[in-house]
């Protein structure tokens, strides 16, 4: 389909006898703000792990910009433009904040050695509002700064598709607005964003379209308004 940046077709993932994803299909359009929600254990993170390449899938296909990427390793998917942030921040602890950004700049975007990696990293930090911490180690960052670092590092990989895996969990409501503003700005720059989130206020405000997973199945798709009124979604979250 024209305009689909990411296309997941019948994706299946099993862990032993447990089916985490049961033939899930979805499409994300170029430039879209896409929400992925579902109760705990519904397969959201598994889906993201399969899309980003951290886990091999057991069936189905993943297309990115129309090309099959199902079999290629994670670092090559990153280079093609699929970049994810982690639910629990995973900074490179031995490096400074600036050094953390230098890794994707050097490896994912294959910046020429002549190009000034430090200046570019600093520019991204300024954009995210973390430039004052550029020379600190991640261990000295607060929770919100850690989340920003996670996003900044993802930005440094120059994504076409940014997958934000619960970037706001555990933040105060003011901090949530902070992160939301950053994500909106990135989207305006043309980056397609998939948001996985439990904070409904955030995901409903942010997303143009939402897909709901429950126990490895896709149970609903629609605009935030449609999702809120969908009885199947209510059942998945609250039971009968």
């Amino acid at each position, binding site marked *: 389909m024209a305009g689909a940046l990411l296309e997941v077709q019948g994706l299946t993932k099993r862990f032993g006898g447990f089916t985490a994803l049961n033939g899930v299909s979805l499409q994300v359009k170029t430039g879209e703000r896409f929400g992925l929600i579902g109760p705990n254990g519904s397969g959201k993170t598994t889906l993201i792990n399969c899309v980003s390449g951290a886990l091999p899938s057991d069936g189905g296909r993943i297309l990115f910009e129309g090309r099959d990427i199902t079999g290629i390793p994670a670092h090559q998917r990153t280079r093609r433009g699929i970049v994810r942030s982690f639910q629990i921040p995973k900074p490179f602890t*031995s490096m400074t904040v600036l050094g953390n950004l230098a*890794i994707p700049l050097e490896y994912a975007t294959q910046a020429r050695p002549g190009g000034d990696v430090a200046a570019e990293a600093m520019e991204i930090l300024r954009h995210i509002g973390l430039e004052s911490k550029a020379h600190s180690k991640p261990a000295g960052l607060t929770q919100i700064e850690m989340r920003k670092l996670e996003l900044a590092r993802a930005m440094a990989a120059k994504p076409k598709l940014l997958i934000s895996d619960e970037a706001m969990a555990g933040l105060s409501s003011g901090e949530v607005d902070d992160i939301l503003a950053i994500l909106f700005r990135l989207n305006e720059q043309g980056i397609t964003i998939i948001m996985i989130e439990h904070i409904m206020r955030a995901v409903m405000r942010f997303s143009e379209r939402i897909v709901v997973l429950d126990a490895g199945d896709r149970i609903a798709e629609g605009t935030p308004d449609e999702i809120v009124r969908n009885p199947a979604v209510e059942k998945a979250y609250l039971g009968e």
Partner: protein
Amino acid sequence: MKTGRYLLVSLGVIGLGVLLARARVNPYIYFAGYVILQYVVIATAWNILGGYAGYVNFGTAAFFALGAYTAIFLIESLKAPLPVLILGGGLVSGVLGLGIGYLTLRLKGVFFSIATFALAVVLQTLVINWDYVGGAKGMTVIRPRTGVLFGNYVTFLFTVMVVLAVGAVTIAWLIERSWIGRGLAALRDNEEAAECMGVPTLRLKVFATTVSGFLMGVAGAPFPYYVTYVEPSSAFNLDYAVNALAMPMIGGTTTWAGPVIGAVLLGTAQQVATVTISSELNLLIVGVVLVGFVVLAPEGILGLVRRIRGR
């Protein structure tokens, strides 16, 4: 360290080594010096995998002994000269390193370490049962005639080891400063995040295990000529595995200088203890010092220096 200064220092070290070899001091100096330099190579090799990439190898003895036994094989079958032995020993151990590189696909952390330990046991068993290289009873090697430049063969081997040590440290130095070194540091900090940031983690790990294995084999290749009698229990000695790990940890694992400092300090202490107290005391010293460092200075001497300077 700047490139120019590094090259100058390394050439200076080689020059000093040659001068010392020509000086004809007490022969024991060369004997002991060889062992210390050999440990510089081994510790540096270990650190490329253990320090830079964070994969702890307990099987150093396997790589070292494989280098030594490859040399014995080449001496027995081809009467190959020393440079060929060194290259051959390095290559065979490098191939073994390549193999354990692919182990990292499935084995992480302590499980990888256990596998490398098992590798040493398996390899030793194979060598014990291989009569061509002496089997369990070992094999005597006759040193070639000494060249004109050096007084005797040990002095010559000492000089060779100086060059090998400088070479090994230079390789580590180059890796550390390159994009490879930065990628290895990223995967040491967090392998999953590194892969997701575009770092080809498998390729880098395989590179590290191969180079590390190669250098350990290089360190082992001149060993038969040094001891002239090689048997499995000496070539596969636990000392190598313990020292290879202890020396970088004592010096500091994140830079090339750490293993050098550790090897020189610990290696010298062991040599002195062997002569003055008892040859059995070697490992006891290593153990005590290592425990002390793990508790008091987990980042080694270099980390300690940085901490004091930082205040």
